[in-house]
């Protein structure tokens, strides 16, 4: 398209736009009221997740441990845990202890 024609088309549209009414500025405050602060929203979201985790894992445990059955089970689990850890630790530290123990048993 030659320059002249391009210019004409440009003038036509600039004339067309100049005849357009200037629309009043939209009421932005209506958007402001309902707007969501991204940082605050993220913070609330993660806080909520943390609360859910706390509720699911810790609160039932506390209630359960307050009962007789709960406290006994917990104590048993704890003791077994310790025992296991002691054995595992011993094994790791000095496996000869067990070997000697087995050998002695066999001799006996």
């Amino acid at each position: 398209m030659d320059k002249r024609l391009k210019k004409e088309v440009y003038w036509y549209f600039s004339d067309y736009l100049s005849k357009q009414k200037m629309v009043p500025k939209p009421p932005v405050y209506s958007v402001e009221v309902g707007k969501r602060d991204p940082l605050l929203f993220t913070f609330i979201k993660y806080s909520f997740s943390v609360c859910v985790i706390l509720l699911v894992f810790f609160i039932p445990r506390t209630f359960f441990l307050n009962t007789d059955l709960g406290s006994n089970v917990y104590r048993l689990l704890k003791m077994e845990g310790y025992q296991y850890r002691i054995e595992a630790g011993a094994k790791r530290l000095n496996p000869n202890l067990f070997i000697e123990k087995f050998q002695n048993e066999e001799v006996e």
Partner: protein
Amino acid sequence: MKNIQRRLRRLALTGRGEKEEIFNDIYRLYARKIRGFIALRLPNYPDDCDDLTQITLLKVYRHLHEYKPLFTMNTWIYTIANRTLIDFVRKESKKGDCPQHPSSSIDDAVSPYTDPVDTLIDAETVQSVRYCLESLDWQDRQIAYLRFYECLKIKNIAGILGKPQGTVKYRIYRIRRQLKKKLEEKYG
């Protein structure tokens, strides 16, 4: 415009910047353009054009921080305007009173422009170009507006109007051919 775009990018990327100020600049620069773009589709419904322009501007304001620097600001704003327009037309057509573009036959088109400055330059050429542009289909007028007034790339126009690039290219070619033909008819 580059300045606004830079500030908008900064706002989108870092969240820093005066949202109000950026929006004011966008409003000053684009309010008339958006209305003009919408009025190409709905020339007989000025109130709807005003409403749609305001809705578009509100959407722009609401999503200022979501602007993707991948696109130019022009493309982004016109895409929002076009989608708002499409939504409106679709909604109205469901109701049964779809806004129609006036008949766009060449015979009916009469140019309302009689600017004395233009008549000094070359009244006949100006009138015939206008006559031809007004006789175009509304889609072609939108494409002509985006291409020859806003000087957007074909890729961007296709993105705004949601059409394949080939279609946009062909339509531009057709508009050019029509305009040239019209001028040749006039001057031989």
